[in-house]
């Protein structure tokens, strides 16, 4: 296990793509094992692809790209503008509300962050927002997108932790809105101090807001339809992703009349590449998964953790702290794949609902994507905005703090996270 970890970190920090770093590290277990033939490494790669819940990954990636081609994004931007651009730090508030609304149609923080950096970033900087502040609002705000259902992070957690994806989706809604509130409050405080202005002098008229909401109705309805379809027994949580794609195409072709055949093919092409990136990491990490189980690492970690404390909330906070530190350096998909199988049984034994823990774990590891030195959402945003990481980091501190406060608060309040799943699930 130690050798495996050393190989992984050495290769990753030397710049090898994470998929190969984790693949070579995992393969080393089979090469050096005296009892398990090396060909079983290949079996683990193949078998990882044969999980039905995992099909949700290509579905929601494709649905996200389809949505972008159906005119949903501009409608949601108009809607966000109407709702909050009159507040202090207006454009930054728009970014955060847009991340929340996009949350209902997109499952990926990185995709949302890149889109906002491209579309809203230049406008914000032109209006006098600092480069680092712009990057921080967009990157950290995209955590909201990943928390509101659908969520690729929650799908992966449900897949490896064997937890109901339907319940996880319901559980993500309230934390997503709490993060939105915390982020907006932080923007308001910073904006007042720096004199970042509102975009307009007074709130928009009720008519204007209603008009924008009405225009965006098919996007705003989508997460609701999604949850109803799961709850109503038409689809299992694994199948609902296929429905999401069909819905996106239907909205694009029939309702918005903006999806062309060219756009349809482009969305497929973009999705194929994204699926290749995500799935190669997942498939190759199948070898590490086997090594972790075979070496009985979960039992070892559980014994060590429970030696420190057996108070559920203390253990959860210890795990979250560990995940936060790990998240500074390790990509979130890898963290979920490696650590959910270890931590879920531990917290479940202590009586923590795995759905509650899933929201906390997913939030912390996804937040890792927004912190240096390793963070995919951060790279995407800083790359597009040409923003130095140091500047980004300084400006992101208040937002990181706000999100951490929300997460720690949620750790103590399972009732808030579980309210919707218990009500409908």
């Amino acid at each position, binding site marked *: 296990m130690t050798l495996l970890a050393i190989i992984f970190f050495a290769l990753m920090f030397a710049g*090898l*793509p994470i998929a190969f770093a984790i693949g*070579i590290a995992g393969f080393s277990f089979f090469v050096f094992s005296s009892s398990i033939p090396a060909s079983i490494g290949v079996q683990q790669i193949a078998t990882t692809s044969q999980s039905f819940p995992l099909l949700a990954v290509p579905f929601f990636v494709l649905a996200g790209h389809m949505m972008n081609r159906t005119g949903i994004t501009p409608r949601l931007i108009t809607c966000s503008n109407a709702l909050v651009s009159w507040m202090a730090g207006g454009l930054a508030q728009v970014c955060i509300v847009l991340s929340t609304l996009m949350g209902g149609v997109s499952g990926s923080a990185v995709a949302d962050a890149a889109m906002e950096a491209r579309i809203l970033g230049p406008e914000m900087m032109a209006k006098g927002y600092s480069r680092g502040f712009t990057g921080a609002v967009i990157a950290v705000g995209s955590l909201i997108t990943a928390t509101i259902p659908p969520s690729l992070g929650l799908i992966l957690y449900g897949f490896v932790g064997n937890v109901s994806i339907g319940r996880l989706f319901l559980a993500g809604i309230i934390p997503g809105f709490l993060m939105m509130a915390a982020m907006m409050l932080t923007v308001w405080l910073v904006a007042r101090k720096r004199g970042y202005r509102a975009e307009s002098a007074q709130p928009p008229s009720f008519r204007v807001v209603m008009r924008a909401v009405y225009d965006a109705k098919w996007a705003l309805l989508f997460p609701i339809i999604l949850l109803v379809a799961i709850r109503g027994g038409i689809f299992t949580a694994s199948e609902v992703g296929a*429905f999401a794609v069909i819905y996106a195409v239907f909205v694009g072709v029939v309702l918005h009349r903006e999806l062309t055949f060219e756009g349809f093919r482009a969305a497929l092409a973009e999705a194929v590449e994204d699926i290749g990136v995500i799935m190669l990491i997942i498939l190759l990490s199948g070898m590490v998964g086997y090594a972790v189980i075979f070496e009985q690492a979960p039992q070892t970690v559980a014994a060590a953790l429970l030696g420190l404390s057996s108070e559920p909330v203390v253990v959860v906070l210890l795990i979250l702290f560990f995940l936060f530190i790990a998240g500074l350096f390790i990509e979130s998909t890898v963290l979920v794949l490696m650590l959910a199988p270890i931590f879920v049984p531990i917290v479940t034994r202590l009586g923590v609902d795995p759905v509650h823990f899933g929201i906390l774990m997913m939030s912390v590891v996804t937040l890792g994507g927004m912190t240096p030195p390793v963070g995919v959402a951060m790279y995407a945003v800083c790359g597009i905005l040409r923003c130095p990481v140091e500047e980004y980091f300084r400006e992101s501190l208040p937002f990181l703090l706000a999100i951490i406060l929300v997460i720690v608060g949620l750790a103590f309040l399972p009732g808030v996270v579980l309210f919707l799943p218990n009500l409908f699930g």
Partner: protein
Amino acid sequence: MPPIHVVLEEFVAKALLAAIVVLVFLAAAARTFGHPLIWSVDLAQLLFVWLCMLGANKALRRKSHIGVDFFVLRLPTAMRRIVEIVLGLLTLGFLGALAYLGVRLTLLNAERIYGDSGISYAWVTGAVPVGCVLLALTLIGHLVRCLRGGALVFLREDAPRPVVE
């Protein structure tokens, strides 16, 4: 116009993705109406592993696989190139080993049936060695270009990337 094998791979991958969506959607719809299609989800799952491999190869061709360039970016260009070539050769060995072992495993257990479908599970296992060969070929292309003094192996020069100061 990209070379013919790239066009073909792209077409097949897109067709696979679309087929998987339709198969799973149809399975759910058919079951709702009381006529479960048992092969539909199985077939989708089988096609999925091939989609993963083709997608991974496309991403490697376009150098889109996520890596940590935080430290490498701080190295002088010549150094960075050497690191990348070493990593590239290591990865090539890894892919070669997987391809060889994958063929052996596929042949060893060819009787294994895929789910309850009656077709051989070799269609799943076999995707791994085929995928590894494709990735290895793409990687060799990148390595050759790098050794000739052109682009890097894994990093995309034109990709948006944070500025180092």
